[in-house]
């Protein structure tokens, strides 16, 4: 347990020892307002250059303090006084070698925890110290109440509240500085003490090195830095000590290689006590709201249920608002357009009429009716992203994945899969471990992408009416269950059950920005329309040609012959040849399944595609088709990316085999189960 220990009162600084002027150093972490205070104090009386031999900027200035000329040096921003960076080395060398009369540590009242580590190290150096407690206004805005006098008592050095940006409290700071310089106020610093189990070791090292140390390095500070594993100090001592002494010190350090953690732990425990003593954080505002909401949203069980509920709500919204609009588009726009085109092309060759009416309008037009549904999907997910909920969803999902043995770093790529599987597979590049990356590549296509969801949103309401929400919800859960089970199985084979740690800091909840959401919806909708006008259009033309050739009769076309050839496979899942062909044509792009059905069934002003489908198939066959769509091999672009990322056709084959087996078994099981319950 770390305890405070009081250093003896410091002797008053020898003002005037620096050529008739007092020397002050400004220390602090980056972005604490140190430079603002420096500019405020020095105005134009400052010089900017570089620290000798370094590319780090050195700023020095002068100002008059009640008739006393003060030279002030703005030290580079440093998190600690350990040799982790050139800035930290410069800051500590300046304090140790130049021995300023006083150090002003600028700390942020809004982020006291962040600032106090450096203060702990400054206190241990024994240099006269004054704390400028800056950004009091920010702390107040964030609902943080600080009691500077409590902090002062705990630290043993003066603490002056201030807002450097508004020059508020700076006069008080200068008054205190003047008092310390004049010896009217003597700080009694209370730095953290090293833990008792390492105190003996520290003392042993101190004894071994003290007689060899050159001025101005204090033996206790050097011994502490050696225990912390400071590379610069270690090098200096190795060069300074006789070989046998260094061997002994080295032996002690090797035996206590965990001392860095013990020393730093002691400082953090000390910081924790300082903060508890001096700060109160009422649970109000954005932070309080985030904490309250996260009790549910980030809970391992309730968080998952909430996520399932939110997904259900998104589907309900989609079917309540999007499906009627889609129906209207199908009947009033696509149907009317097909009727109008048929009339207009009555005198044209039959194949031109077929290509335009059945191929383009029936195929691509049917796909474009997805747009209202997709806009609602995009808007709902953009809203969830923008308010900060998606991070929670990722967290609870990742928790579940870890329970199943999946890799923690996989969750972001997998989450991307809800939009499109291609970036999900590409996103696995951020995973360093090859087995983890490969596993994520293999299972990523099981995340239902927007294109699959659009197919579901088209078919589910037609067959299941008001129950479409539950069917869709069940299909998504079924896909995710398949993902988790496949992942668990593959993890056992590839990972041998290895568990890694992944730490997240989630953003605060905030009000959504409608402009951001609007922009996202616009970009994604535009991308979908472009896809319909390119890849889906090309496939629709190809499918129409195959359904037209060789003699213009669908039932004897190449497509029908192919469909009849592979038909027996589909029968296990309740498909006729048309559903089987629609499924296969979804390989280039998932939406093509609907485009193909539109071509095969045709559309007219009297009957839309959904009417024709419900007349042709049972709900059991529709449910089976949707299940297979969710689990079937991913689209061509995703397969190409799997080849690129996995770097071998072998893994592509494994992936295709996995999805074929999963979709066939899943479809057959769902079809026969649905028939069994009378669907």
């Amino acid at each position, binding site marked *: 347990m770390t305890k405070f220990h009081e250093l003896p009162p410091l002797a008053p600084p020898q003002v005037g020892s620096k050529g008739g002027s007092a020397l002050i150093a400004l220390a602090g972490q980056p972005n604490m307002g140190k430079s603002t205070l420096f500019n405020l104090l020095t105005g134009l009386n400052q010089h900017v250059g570089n620290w000798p031999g370094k590319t780090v900027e050195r700023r020095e200035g002068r100002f008059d303090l009640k008739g006393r000329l003060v030279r002030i040096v703005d030290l580079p921003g440093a998190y600690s006084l350990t040799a982790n960076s050139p800035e930290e080395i410069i800051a500590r060398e300046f304090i140790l070698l130049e021995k300023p009369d006083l150090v002003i540590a600028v700390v942020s009242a809004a982020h006291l925890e962040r600032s106090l580590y450096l203060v702990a190290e400054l206190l241990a150096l024994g240099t006269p110290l004054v704390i400028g407690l800056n950004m009091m206004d920010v702390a107040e805005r964030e609902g943080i109440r600080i009691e500077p006098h409590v902090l002062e008592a705990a630290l043993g050095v003066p603490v002056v509240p201030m807002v450097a940006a508004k020059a508020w409290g700076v006069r008080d700071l200068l008054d205190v500085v003047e008092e310390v310089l004049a010896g009217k106020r003597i700080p009694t610093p209370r730095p953290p003490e090293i833990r008792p189990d390492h105190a003996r070791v520290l003392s042993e090292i101190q004894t071994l090195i003290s007689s060899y140390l050159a001025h101005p390095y204090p033996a206790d500070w050097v011994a502490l830095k050696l225990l912390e594993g400071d590379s610069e100090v270690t090098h200096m001592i190795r060069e300074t000590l006789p070989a046998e002494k260094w061997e002994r010190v080295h032996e002690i350090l090797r035996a206590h290689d965990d001392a860095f953690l013990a020393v*730093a732990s002691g400082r953090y425990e000390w910081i924790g006590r300082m903060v508890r003593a001096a700060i109160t954080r009422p649970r109000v505002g954005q932070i309080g709201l985030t904490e309250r909401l996260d009790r549910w949203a980030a809970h391992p069980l309730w968080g998952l249920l909430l996520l399932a509920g939110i997904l259900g709500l998104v589907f309900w919204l989609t079917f309540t608002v999007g499906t009627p609009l889609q129906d209207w588009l199908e009947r009033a726009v696509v149907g009317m357009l097909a009727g109008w085109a048929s009339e207009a092309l009555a005198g044209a060759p039959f194949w031109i009429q077929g290509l335009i009416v059945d191929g383009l309008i029936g195929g691509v037009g049917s796909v474009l009716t997805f747009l209202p549904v997709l806009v609602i999907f995009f808007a709902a997910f953009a809203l969830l992203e923008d308010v*900060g909920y998606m991070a929670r969803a990722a967290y609870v999902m990742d928790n579940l994945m870890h329970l199943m043995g999946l890799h923690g770093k996989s969750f972001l790529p997998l989450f*991307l899969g809800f939009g499109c599987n291609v970036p999900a597979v590409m996103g696995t590049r951020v995973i360093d471990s090859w087995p983890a990356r490969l596993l994520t590549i293999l299972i990523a296509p099981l995340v239902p992408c927007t294109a699959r969801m659009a197919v579901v949103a088209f078919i589910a309401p037609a067959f299941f009416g008001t129950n479409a929400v539950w069917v869709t919800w069940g299909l998504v859960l079924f896909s995710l269950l398949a993902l988790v089970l496949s992942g668990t199985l593959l993890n056992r084979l590839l990972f041998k059950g290895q568990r890694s740690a992944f730490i997240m800091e989630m953003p605060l909840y905030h009000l959504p920005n409608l402009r951001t959401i609007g922009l996202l919806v616009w970009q994604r909708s535009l991308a979908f329309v472009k896809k319909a006008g390119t890849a889906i259009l090309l496939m629709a033309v190809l499918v129409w040609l195959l359904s037209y050739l060789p003699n213009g009769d669908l039932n004897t076309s190449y497509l029908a012959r192919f469909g009849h050839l592979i038909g027996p496979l589909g029968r296990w899942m309740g498909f006729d040849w048309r559903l089987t062909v629609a499924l296969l044509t979804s390989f280039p792009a998932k939406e093509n399944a609907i485009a193909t059905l539109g071509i095969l069934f045709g559309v007219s002003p009297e009957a839309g595609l959904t009417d024709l489908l419900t007349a042709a198939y049972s709900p059991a066959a529709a449910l089976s088709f949707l299940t297979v769509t969710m689990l079937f091999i991913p689209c061509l672009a995703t397969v190409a990316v799997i080849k690129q990322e996995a770097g071998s056709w072998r893994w592509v084959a494994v992936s295709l085999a996995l999805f074929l087996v999963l979709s066939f078994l899943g479809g057959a099981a769902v079809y026969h189960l649905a028939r069994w319950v009378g669907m």
Partner: protein
Amino acid sequence: MLEQLLAEIRGGGTLEVSVLAKRLNTTPDLVTVMLEHLQRSGYLRSYEPCDDTCNECALKSACRMKDLSSGMRLWQGKGE
């Protein structure tokens, strides 16, 4: 406290800063500061969802990784 934090991390799994703060009986801010310290000391590394590996990606402009992880900070134990 830092040792306790490292022990939690070594236990594996997905950890969240505020949950860690409760387990360590401290504030989320202090946990974040300690994580940054462990990162500077080489025990952890921060996870950048869109780092240099994404620069060559043809789909970079369409990728939502950065937006999805917006506002989040992520760390991972070294050597994992």
